[in-house]
């Protein structure tokens, strides 16, 4: 149940572990059985998984050196913008995706939003996540949407052998390769399913774009040489999890974004080592998913998580705590009428001067004269950010937020960040 986890999920699980462990003694002292504690733990974890079930789902992307494929946004819960630059080799049997942009070297594909999985990706495709993670696919693969919790471990080996047997056949022959949510640590994977990407990731995590470039170039050359299934070369940049993948050709810049969890470093190092050691293997693994966990939803200059839709609720909730419109309204009804009555009665008893003032100014009747706020609590949303702030700045009606160490619940999903920057208009 805890196998497929993203960085947020890992954090939460570690928190659960800490709490449960520290409670163990207390429970025993109280005379409660250990079983009770375990039940509590299971209950907690299951509830957490339920609510975050979607988030655990990670996609695996396969990099193809020549082809940049952008996965549709609808697949994911997030609203990442799709940016893809795709190069489709003329010889490849590409899918009928609409070509958005084409440069001399790259053609951009973005998968239609309604694209249903499984998606077949020809060899020589570079996939790029919206966050900039690059995956090179040297072997034609089929990307499918796997249910959360699915173990991909068994598949890669099978696929590797199958692919080798039928190298020439592209999409049709390709076995469906489930895209898996972030998974088990590489160490738990069988040796055959190497986390090639991990090896490449480790350097990338440290913003080692230059380091990665030689790798992808090497694989690119390989793939270009032959349509035969090549070892999948994953060049992934560490970034927090994102749903969309846009893969740039290795020749292009590999975007790197800082990983947020400490796990990423380890994973990346392992991935890179394994990748180097196993050039022959296909790598469709969950290591991608693990790495994708690192994918950062928003770059330093990106405001998507604090942008318009969130703007108002973010501002209200984040800045002032959670405001309960219901409670306020209830309070208003109760107070409005009583205040009106008391005011009018007290005004009669005042002196002449005060009376003139009060009577003239006073009829603040409960709703009669004064119109209530026309747009009360426009966005009574559940999108909440709980965090600390470094700096909040306002100019007229433009707000700028520099936040740190926080958890954001956006559209039902949790995102943990150590730094967040945002802008909003009021």
């Amino acid at each position, binding site marked *: 149940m805890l196998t497929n986890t993203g960085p947020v999920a890992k954090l939460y699980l570690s928190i659960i572990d800490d709490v449960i462990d520290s409670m163990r003694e207390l429970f025993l002292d109280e005379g409660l059985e250990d079983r009770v504690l375990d039940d509590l733990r299971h209950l907690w974890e299951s509830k957490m998984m339920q609510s975050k079930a979607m988030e655990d789902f990670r996609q695996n992307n396969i990099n193809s050196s020549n082809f940049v494929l952008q996965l549709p946004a609808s697949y994911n819960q997030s609203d990442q913008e799709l940016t893809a630059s795709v190069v489709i080799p003329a010889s490849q049997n590409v899918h009928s995706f609409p070509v958005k942009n084409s440069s001399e070297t790259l053609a951009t594909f973005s998968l239609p939003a309604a694209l249903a999985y499984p998606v077949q990706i020809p060899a020589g495709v570079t996939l790029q996540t919206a966050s900039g993670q690059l995956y090179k696919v040297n072997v034609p693969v089929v990307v499918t949407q796997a249910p959360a919790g699915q173990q991909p471990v068994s598949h890669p080996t099978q696929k590797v052998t199958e692919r080798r047997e039928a190298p020439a056949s592209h999409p049709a022959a390709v076995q469906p390769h489930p895209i898996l949510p972030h998974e088990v640590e590489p160490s738990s994977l069988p040796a055959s399913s190497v986390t090639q990407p991990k090896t490449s990731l480790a350097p990338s995590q440290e913003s080692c774009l230059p380091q990665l470039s030689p790798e992808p170039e090497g694989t690119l050359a390989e793939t270009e040489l032959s349509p035969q299934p090549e070892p999948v070369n994953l060049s992934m940049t560490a970034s927090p999890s994102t749903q969309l993948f846009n893969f740039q050709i290795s020749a292009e810049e590999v975007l790197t974004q800082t990983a947020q969890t400490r796990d990423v470093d380890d994973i990346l190092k392992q991935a890179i080592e394994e990748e180097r050691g196993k050039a022959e293997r296909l790598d469709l693994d969950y290591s991608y998913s693990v790495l994708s966990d690192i994918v950062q939803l928003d770059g330093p200059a990106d405001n998507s998580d604090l942008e318009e839709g969130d703007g108002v609720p973010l501002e*209200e909730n984040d800045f*002032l*705590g959670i*405001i309960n419109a219901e409670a*306020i*309204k209830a*309070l*208003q009804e109760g*107070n*409005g009428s009583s*205040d009106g009555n*008391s*005011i009018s009665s007290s*005004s009669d008893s005042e002196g002449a001067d005060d009376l003139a*003032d*009060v009577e003239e*100014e*006073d*009829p*603040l009747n*409960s*709703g009669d*004269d*004064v*119109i*209530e*706020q*026309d*747009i*009360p*609590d426009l966005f009574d949303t559940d999108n909440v950010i709980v965090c600390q702030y470094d700096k909040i700045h*306002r100019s007229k009606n433009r707000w700028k937020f520099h936040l740190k160490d926080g958890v954001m619940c956006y559209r039902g999903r949790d995102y943990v960040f150590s730094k967040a920057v945002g802008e909003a208009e*009021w």
Partner: protein
Amino acid sequence: MDSSDEALDIIVTNVVATFRTRCHLNLRTIALEGTNVIYKPEVGKVLMKLRKPKITASIWSSGKIICTGATSEDEAKLGARRLARCLQKLGFKVRFSAFRVVNVLAVCSMPFGVHLIDFTKNNRPIASYEPELHPAATYRIKHLKATIQVFSTGSITVTGPNVQNVATAVEQVYPLLFECQKPLCK
């Protein structure tokens, strides 16, 4: 020749008003439970912004409230009442009293430029001009309690206690400006 008002557009840009709630206000409560508020504990006030009449109000714990940003006196009053209603809903026994427009700021643009040196010379004690400090000449009308700042481009800003005074001030100063006009150099 030139009538005082002529179809000059006097645009009221800001109306500042104050009123009292006659009750002590707990700023912390307002800051935590109010909508669209900015708490400034270092100064000891809460800013509450309203969208509908676009106004910003500074709320003090004594119950004194200063309301700025309205574009007309009526709007200022309406906004102030809305604000008081907001506070009432938060649970305070608010009584809307002592509403008073304190300041009105208006701008007006002459169809001609003004030669500030001449203007100042002609209106010696009433007008003052210090180009090193401020690029505009200041003309104060005592009995109206209005201050007019005249720029060489012919734009003027007028501040006064109410809109009527501001209009009167513009009428008064117009002929003086007309005398010292100069063609706007491009």
